[in-house]
């Protein structure tokens, strides 16, 4: 019986030695063939470790910067809220004055709106008169009608055909046209045609003035 046991243990020993020899052989062979790959993978994992540390540092920095920015921003907001509170308190004493100012402002705005209904006839009349007198002494403004949209109808009269022809040159010049958005000749007539001694040539225009600042 002891002999049998000895033989068994010897056999197990041999099996273990064989197995370990086989394992050792296998490891050795793998390390020799795949060493390059192993180093490559180890390098990747090395950089993963570095990246983890770097990212941790970056995260701490970014979050810190944000917190600083937010705290600065919050303090600015707090200061603005304090200013607003002070100003509102100071305005409470000035409610009456503010109401008066509001009244003036609204009335004045209404006044400006209502003034849009006005034809502002005189400035445009004077403008046309001065333009005509600067062109020729002979042109006489016979009538002038203006609306709030600055649409105007005016009649100019002349004593001779030469004066009329010279006025045509002026009408087409930039010196005259600069006052109008548009202008067109509405009609031409000869007044007093039956009395050959007192002929009057009349030109009627439709136009729209450019807006002038009074």
């Amino acid at each position: 019986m002891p002999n049998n046991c000895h033989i068994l243990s010897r056999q197990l020993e041999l099996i273990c030695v064989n197995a370990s020899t086989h394992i050792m052989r296998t490891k050795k062979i793998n390390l020799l063939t795949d060493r390059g790959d192993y180093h490559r993978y180890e390098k990747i994992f090395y950089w993963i470790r570095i990246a983890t540390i770097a990212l941790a540092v970056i995260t701490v920095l970014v979050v810190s910067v944000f917190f600083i920015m937010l705290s600065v921003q919050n303090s600015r907001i707090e200061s603005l809220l304090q200013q607003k509170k002070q100003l509102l308190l100071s305005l409470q004493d000035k409610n009456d004055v503010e109401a008066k100012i509001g009244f003036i402002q609204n009335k004045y705005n209404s006044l400006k709106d209502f003034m849009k209904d006005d034809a502002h006839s005189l400035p445009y009349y004077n403008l046309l008169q001065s333009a005509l007198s600067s062109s020729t002494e002979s042109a006489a403004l016979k009538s002038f009608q203006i609306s709030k949209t600055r649409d105007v109808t005016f009649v100019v009269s002349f004593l001779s055909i030469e004066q009329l022809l010279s006025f045509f040159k002026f009408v087409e010049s930039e010196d005259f046209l600069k006052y109008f958005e548009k202008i067109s000749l509405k009609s031409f007539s000869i007044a007093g045609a039956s009395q050959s001694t007192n002929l009057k040539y009349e030109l009627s225009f439709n136009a729209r003035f450019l807006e002038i600042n009074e």
Partner: protein
Amino acid sequence: MNKHLKPYIISLIKENLTYISILFVILFLLMVSVSVLLSKYSFNSIKENDLVKEVADLNKRVETASSAMADSQNLQQNIKLLDKLIPGTEDFFSIIYALENLSRKSGFQITAYSVDMKNSKVNKLQISISGSGDNESFIKFLKDYNFGGGRLITSDNIELSPKQSGNIKIDLAFYSKKTEVANGTLNFNKNLLDELTKLKQKVDLSYVEASEEASVDLSYPKNTSPF
């Protein structure tokens, strides 16, 4: 090949498992915290910008009110002036007074007037006037009619001729408006004050001064708490 690589990759993964987990956690934290902090920052920026505008408006209001308080007499005069030019309710007496005043100032004699109800509106009373005078007086009338009578008057269509005389007809409009007191940002700047000063020069101030204390309704919504 992969079959042989697996064991040491697995071993490397096991060795670096802590780092890999931390990397993912940090990445997640970074993304979440950056997005939360960014949205908080942009929300605060909007709030700050709004507050800056509000404070600037309030500052302007305080400055305006303070400067107006310093010249309260002028403020009161401006209220009277504008309330006479455009009264809260229509007042026929002031219309007649304005026409007479204009007639006296210009020399253009207003001989008749009639209310044109057809073209009148709630805030606008249309009146047709007939008058006589030479060209000079009519030009003077046209120069002064907007404010010279003490009421705001407009005419949307005017016909004139250098040699006109005799009876002249002209359509005039008078205005009245109940003015609500503005609440909020006031724009009472120097330009408005300058415009009002110019306006005063055109209006018969004696009429404004002589009139009774302006019964102007300056009621405004009172806020008990400023916040």
